[in-house]
């Protein structure tokens, strides 16, 4: 029987190809994601192994705040360097810094982009423990000299002797370029830019005099790295609050931190790859169902010749396993290409993640092939069982149309799912855990999919009505064809439904978030202009720049808002830092209790819901620890309702701290009578001098802040694109099989006078009806899902649901186009139907 199955599988090359195509698409995203993740992981492994290659020990502060999006650590006093150098076993040690510094190009524009790889300032040293090697020129000495990495010097066309302007925490200065450096063998790691100074200049310019980030230590070879670290630790001053790690430990820790952040991202990708796989499942199941129906005669003949039910069923399952293995192997190969496409997608929307080479794990191959084969086999089980049940007599009969049987049971099960789902969603909307939301959405989707075959006929008839009006009998046949196999139509439309529902839900969610951003900013920001920077938690607008703008004669007031990591009670959030003295009338937290402008140095403001949840009413006090380890009790001075952060403090709190303080936004109001042109000119004279930030009017700013959501939406669209492709391929496959199945009919139509273009029209509209059936149900489902998600996320700050009307229209038009595109090839095939052989042969 196995040999027979194998032979029968290989004999039907077309069917084999179509089924494999569905599996290839379904599994390729899965393998693409795992290859992509493995590649970024190994890229970072290599990068940090390279960076810390010469480092035997690493000394750093013990104070840190871990926000969950990477750790922020306090600075270390330079004075510890002498202590470290005295430890026996240490041959060299040097201060290390990776602070914010931005090189301004010869054209006055800064090098690097706001959202690109980071721009660093650091220390150049002759010490053997330093990471930088002088390529040409010499090391910088004193407050007027600097060095650049080779890639940056080339990008900015700087040569030794040039004057280079650099912006950093303490302002903008000019330096003379005395050398070009290499980072080990690399010219510039990860595309970042580096401005290098001697240690005192670096500390004073980039951070705070007398402080560096950490120390890099090289041993003399007499001690193992562990012994060296121990020896250094024993000598460090307790008051400096420092600790020593081995080179291997710091490499491991840095890598794992990056991996943790990337982990969120790869989980996100994996979720979408499972969506694609699920969508692919429908296509695979559909293909097996249709082919099983089409080979009914073949199965019946086998039965008539003495094959048992089990043998007939097994032959189909064996076929599924063969196709599954084959398809998933090809899917894995396609995934290699897809991993590159993922990289390109991320680059295109500005989320650059460095990847070098291609890392393929055996586990990725095994899991892809395993998952692909298993789902293919599972998809084939029902059709295979159905095949086995074919009576031998069916061999003599005409192929019957597939009919929906057990409609009542189907409706009952579907409705049951829907009810369970709605209960889950209602629970979620009333504040139950997020898991209820997820399960509720899942159950509603399942309910709709189960009900699909029951509603596909009436809905297809309804959608086809206008077409039958416009296109006459050709349209009537499209309408009837779309409705004649309700199960098939429902299964074909299911991938479209899932894709459209997700697109709609995310679009609705994004629209709601945008609306919320507009409202939040609109009501909190009262000024005329905003200077903003999207720094991704690194650097920003130095507060002295904010003060400079505030002092401009054209400016009435300018106030800055920044975010910084801190421990508050048992949490480690980013807290909002603002200047209460200048915020009045410009930045309004919408206080509920207390006053924003009178916030003192030892006080804190809390978002109202947070204050209730954490039992921190006005008048109570909470312990706050800053990155530099300073711990204090802050008094809750008020509650507010409108801001991005749950805690807000005055920037006075950071006076004298080694923690660099940057503003993310500067809100500006101008003196009355100052023209727009004049205001922009004077303000941007300062902001362009530091080379960062975007100056916008109030309306422009609100628009651009809301538009940031689009980046994530673009990523989600990109990731859903593959599901859409699978949906299109699903329609193509179904239509091809239907055209084959109806070749007699098409031949007859051609004989009695249907032109080729009418045949194409007929197939095209059937395709459009099927696609629209999926889209219309998908849009409805997506809107419902969107509403529920918005309601249940209410607490996280989204209050109102915004229906994205134009997007919904675009989605429907898009589905229409999908239908048209999917029909092109099957319609062409249909026009090639040989009239004689399809009619005369019986």
């Amino acid at each position: 029987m196995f040999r027979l199955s194998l032979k029968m599988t290989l004999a039907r090359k077309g069917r084999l190809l179509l089924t494999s195509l569905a599996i290839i698409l379904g599994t390729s995203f899965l393998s693409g994601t795992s290859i992509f993740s493995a590649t970024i992981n190994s890229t970072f492994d290599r990068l940090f192994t390279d960076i810390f290659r010469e480092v035997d020990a690493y000394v750093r502060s013990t104070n840190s705040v871990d926000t969950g999006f990477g750790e922020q650590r306090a600075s270390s006093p330079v004075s510890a360097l002498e202590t470290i150098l005295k430890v026996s076993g240490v041959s060299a040690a040097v201060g290390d810094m990776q602070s914010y510094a931005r090189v301004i190009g010869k054209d006055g524009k800064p090098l690097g982009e706001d959202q690109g790889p980071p721009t660093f300032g650091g220390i150049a040293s002759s010490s053997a423990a330093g990471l930088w090697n002088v390529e040409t020129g010499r090391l910088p000495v004193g407050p007027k000299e600097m060095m650049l990495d080779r890639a940056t010097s080339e990008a900015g066309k700087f040569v030794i002797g040039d004057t280079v302007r650099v912006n950093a925490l303490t302002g903008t200065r000019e330096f003379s370029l005395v050398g070009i450096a290499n980072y080990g063998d690399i010219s510039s790691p990860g595309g970042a830019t580096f401005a290098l100074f001697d240690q005192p200049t670096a500390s004073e310019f980039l951070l705070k005099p007398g402080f560096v980030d950490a120390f890099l230590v090289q041993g003399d070879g007499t001690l193992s790295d562990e012994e060296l670290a121990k020896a250094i630790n024993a000598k460090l001053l307790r008051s400096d609050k420092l600790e020593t790690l081995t080179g291997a430990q710091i490499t491991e820790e840095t890598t794992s931190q990056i991996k943790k952040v990337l982990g969120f991202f790869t989980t996100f990708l994996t979720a979408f790859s499972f969506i694609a796989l699920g969508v692919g499942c429908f296509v695979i199941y559909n293909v097996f169902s249709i082919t099983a129906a089409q080979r009914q005669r073949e199965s019946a003949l086998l039965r008539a010749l003495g094959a048992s039910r089990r043998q007939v069923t097994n032959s189909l399952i064996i076929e599924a396993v063969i196709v599954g293995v084959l398809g998933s192997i090809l899917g894995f190969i396609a995934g290699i290409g897809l991993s590159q496409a993922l990289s390109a997608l991320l680059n295109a929307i500005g989320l650059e993640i460095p990847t070098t080479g291609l890392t393929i794990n055996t586990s990725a191959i095994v899991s892809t092939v395993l998952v692909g084969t298993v789902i293919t086999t599972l998809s084939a089980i029902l059709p295979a069982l159905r095949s086995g049940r074919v009576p031998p007599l069916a061999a003599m009969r005409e192929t019957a149309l597939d009919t929906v049987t057990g409609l009542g049971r189907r409706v009952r099960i579907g409705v049951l799912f829907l009810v369970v789902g709605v209960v889950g969603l209602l629970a979620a909307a009333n504040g139950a855990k997020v898991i209820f939301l997820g399960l509720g959405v899942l159950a509603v989707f399942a309910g709709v999919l189960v009900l699909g075959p029951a509603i596909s006929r009436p809905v297809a008839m309804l959608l086809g009505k206008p077409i039958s009006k416009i296109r006459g009998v050709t349209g009537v046949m499209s309408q009837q064809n779309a409705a004649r196999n309700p199960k098939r139509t429902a299964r074909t439309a299911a991938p479209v439904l899932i894709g459209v529902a997700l697109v709609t839900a995310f679009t609705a969610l994004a629209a709601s978030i945008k609306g919320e951003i507009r409202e939040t900013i609109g009501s909190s920001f009262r000024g005329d202009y905003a200077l903003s920077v999207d720094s991704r938690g690194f650097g920003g607008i130095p507060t002295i720049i904010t003060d400079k703008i505030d002092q401009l004669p054209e400016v009435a007031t300018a106030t800055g808002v920044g975010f910084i990591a801190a421990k508050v009670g048992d949490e480690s959030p980013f807290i909002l830092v603002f200047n209460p003295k200048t915020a009045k009338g410009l930045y309004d937290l919408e206080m509920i209790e207390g006053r924003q402008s009178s916030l003192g140095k030892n006080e804190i403001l809390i978002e109202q819901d947070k204050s209730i949840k954490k039992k921190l009413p006005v008048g109570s006090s909470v312990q706050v620890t800053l990155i530099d380890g300073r711990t204090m009790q802050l008094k809750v001075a008020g509650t507010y309702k409108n801001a991005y952060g749950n805690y807000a403090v005055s920037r006075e709190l950071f006076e004298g701290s080694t923690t660099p303080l940057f503003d993310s936004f500067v809100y500006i109001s101008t003196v009355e009578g100052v023209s727009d042109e004049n205001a922009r000119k004077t303000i941007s004279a300062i902001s362009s001098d530091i080379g960062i930030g975007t100056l916008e009017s109030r309306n422009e700013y609100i628009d651009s802040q809301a538009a940031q959501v689009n980046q994530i939406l673009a990523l989600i669209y990109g990731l859903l694109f593959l599901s859409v492709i699978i949906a299109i391929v699903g329609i193509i496959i179904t239509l091809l099989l239907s055209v084959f199945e109806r070749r007699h009919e098409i031949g007859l139509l051609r004989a009695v006078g249907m032109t080729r273009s009418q045949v194409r029209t007929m197939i095209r509209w059937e395709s459009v009806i099927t696609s629209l059936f999926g889209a219309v149900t998908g849009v409805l489902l997506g809107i419902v899902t969107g509403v529920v998600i918005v309601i249940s996320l209410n607490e996280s700050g989204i209050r109102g649901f915004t229906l994205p009307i134009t997007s919904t229209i675009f989605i429907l038009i898009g589905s229409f186009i999908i239908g048209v595109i999917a029909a092109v090839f099957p319609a062409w095939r249909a026009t090639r139907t040989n009239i004689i052989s399809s009619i005369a042969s019986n």
Partner: protein
Amino acid sequence: MNSTRIAARAESASKIYGSGENEVRALDNVSVSFERGKFSAIMGPSGSGKSTLMHCIAGLDSLTQGKVFIGETDLSELSDKEITKLRREKVGFVFQSFNLIPTLSAYENITLPLSLGKKSGDEAWIKQVIDTISLNDRLEHRPSELSGGQQQRVAVARALATQPEIIFADEPTGNLDSKSGSDILKFMRRAVTDLKQTILMVTHDAVSASYADRIVFLADGHVAGEMLEPTPEKVLDYLKHLGE
């Protein structure tokens, strides 16, 4: 012979499949014409080329050499689109099976060629045709709800609906029991006698052929002979001799 009396004809028609050693001459230099207003039949054993001849005259297949005409129209000069239009307007078809579109009602099937050409047709004529097939009460039914004989009657009505130049019937009773078969044949006979239509039928059954006014016999791709006013006995007798 007056050409206006000819509904369809073939001139030195040849149809060759394959080449060289494998060459098969399905039609070998066949010249034959079929009169308007007559019920003609083509007979011959399997492989005699009778179906090929009909397919070529009907514009479903093309000749290797020679010409075919429907009325005065030379099919070899027409594009696929023009031939399709000609089939829709000037030709009717009745096949052995797969005659009806399962998703359309009996009435929609009958008017299908008209609808495809976006024409409403001659309503009085269509009513007359439908009356003749006496299926007035089943017009809204789908083909799957009709018996085999009823389905073939709908097919004949469809072929008549456009008042074509000629109707081609390919073994129209091949799948029917003898009662339904003879009903169809009588009905076709009436279409010619009473409604002045032209029918060309391919068959291998002597009884069916005897309903025709004239029989053309084909053997090995050649015209082997013809018979006017046939009876089943005469046909069987002729076939017996043809086989010798």
